[in-house]
């Protein structure tokens, strides 16, 4: 698990399920920062992320009895957060359905590895974050689910509502768009090597 503060607290979960408010507080204290950062990466503004964090924990509280304690709590938590953020974006009509159509048309290319290496070498984390903010929502969400929440392809497919077979395509396309944003040109994304 990549996200911080994800040590499982099965005892606290069990107590929270039994109605122990102290345990609920412990869970919140443990996981709220990670969920806020997840929402911050997935949504456009800090304010949206704050509200979403609140709402995610509301949902978690109501659905805690549905949680299968044999599975990692963090995975379930991120799944709830992902669904919530994605629903939020859909409700705001930010999601672009036409993106689905493009999935089949990803060109099979072999980009210039050295150029890619140089790009990665030059860019800072801050620049990557700025580039992420500039991505279309599906691309950004896919990268967040995979590289922040460490979700499996099945979970990503479920969260984004795409077929599992196309999760890799979505991710690769998202990487291309990120490179474009970082580079300011389509050179790398289009593939320079022949």
């Amino acid at each position, binding site marked *: 698990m990549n996200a911080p503060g994800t040590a499982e607290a099965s005892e606290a979960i069990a107590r929270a399920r039994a109605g122990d408010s102290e345990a609920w507080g412990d869970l919140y204290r443990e996981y709220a920062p990670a969920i806020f950062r997840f929402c911050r990466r997935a949504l456009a503004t800090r304010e949206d992320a704050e509200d979403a964090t*609140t709402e995610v924990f509301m949902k978690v509280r109501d659905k805690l009895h549905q949680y299968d304690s044999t599975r990692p709590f963090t995975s379930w938590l991120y799944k709830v957060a992902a669904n919530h953020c994605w629903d939020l974006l859909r409700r705001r009509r930010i999601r672009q359905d036409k993106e689905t159509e493009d999935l089949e048309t990803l060109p099979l290319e072999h980009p210039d590895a050295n150029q890619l290496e140089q790009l*990665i070498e030059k860019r800072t984390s801050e620049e990557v974050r700025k580039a992420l903010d500039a991505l279309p929502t599906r691309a950004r969400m896919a*990268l967040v689910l995979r590289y922040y929440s460490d979700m499996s392809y099945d979970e990503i497919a479920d969260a984004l509502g795409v077929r599992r077979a196309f999760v*890799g395509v979505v991710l690769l396309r998202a990487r291309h768009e990120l490179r474009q944003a970082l580079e300011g040109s389509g050179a790398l994304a289009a593939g320079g090597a022949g």
Partner: protein
Amino acid sequence: MSSPPQTNVQGKNMQHLDEMTILLYLERQLDRARAAEVSAHTQECGTCRTLLRALERESRLLTRAMLEEEEPLPARIASFQQSARRTLQWIWMLTFGLAATGVYALYTSYIEPVQSHLQDAGFGGTNLLGLLIFQGAFWKGWQSMISLVEILALIVIGGSALLLFRRWFRRGMLAALLVTGMCGAMMMPSNAAAIETRKGESIEIAKSETVKGDLLLTGNRIVIDGTVDGDVYAFGQDIEVNGHITGDLLTGAQTVRVPGIIDGNIRAFVNTLIIPGSVGRNVMTWSQTFNLDSGGTIGRSVLTFCQTFGLEGKVGGDVTLFDQTTRITGSVNGSIDARGEMLTVKKTAAVTGPIKFEGETEPRVEDGAKLQAGAINFTKHSSKDRNENLRSYYLHRLLWTSSFILYGLVMIWLMPKFAGDCFKSAENAGASVGIGVLAGISLPFAAGLVCFTFVGLPLGILGVLLWLVMIFSGQIVFGGLIGRWILGRTEDVWGRVGRMALGMGIIGVVVPILHQIPVAEFLFKLVVMAWGFGAIALVLYKRIARTPSVPVPPPLAA
């Protein structure tokens, strides 16, 4: 991975893997055979190996960029726990503070001045509640009550400190500390009082002996010939006070005789009480026979619940009587308010204040009796009247109980979950009664304050209305709790209604029984209302605390 594009791309010298395939290999999404192929290829092909490394680095860069905490957490999220605790602390502190201030203000503003005026005017203050609560050996005066307020304040401060630092305490430890603190606080008065205890078949305080401090005596026969500079708590068969007690006498015995001097009060639960001596302050007694002998004097007021009371001596204040038969031959420097079957005022009697008598037979007043305020104000209560009154009372109780059951039925039907929560919450007796008492006192005060401060009258009135609704609904909750005790828990709405109706029925039977005992009905209702009120307040608090407007989710419902 089932069928993502996996076509190889033609390079200069050999076919290279496409980026999609390398990514899927990197992310362990290829089946074993394909992964082995890709692995073998990247061993041989430097270009594809470089791309694999680049993609891997890109993944790491992405993860690192997203995990970095470049901006602080929003304050409302970071500080939720602290703020929630602070809010809770302030609620509790406010409630405790208001309750303590309310009690103290109530006393200093109303009770103390009235008492003082009454005392100045020569009235001893014969109000039953006043005698029970604000005077005498029960509370040892308001000095003790002020101490109580101080102790309450200490508990509040201590409790608040514990709440503030509760993150360092485990819950059990916190509870233990609170209990220890409260026990310590309760022990304080007894330590300060330094009660000396004496037990035995026969106990005698010799004439030459002087006991400093309070004294607890238990024995078959107790004789105090000497001096006790403090209060005496005496329990035995025969008790005689020939000497001098500078404080109060609280006693339970077959026969108590006081030829000596008591500077304070007498509170007696006895069969026979005879006072040939002197009592400086008040006398309150539950007894079969009480006689204030001709030489006996009582400095202030008298309150009696007796079968026979003979007042032959002198009383310096008012007299309140709930006796079957009363005979007055002595003097009373105050008023007489008597209820019973018979009142006789002999010719030697002298009463300065007005006399009221409610009874079955007209009081007998002998010629020569000096009644300075004129004739006795007599109200006749015949057996028939009493029966009618009783019938009326029972009918009233029946209607009252029925209307409560109906009210409860509607409330449970309209708000089944809330009602269920309230019944469940009421099972937590300590918290319910405690919060009921505190919130029951503080809410009207808070509402009053709101009326005169910034929010205005409507909110204050709303607060008072809410208080009234909760007070009345509290009885329903207590009824439901009794039903649960008897029939067990249920989630069914009509099951809850049935249990509530059963409980209310039981309350309806108990209240008329307690009606026969002075104060008992009032105290019972007080406990019932506080209990139910507290249970509702707890549920309301939990509901309010988990409303979505709160920045982050509050505690789970218990």
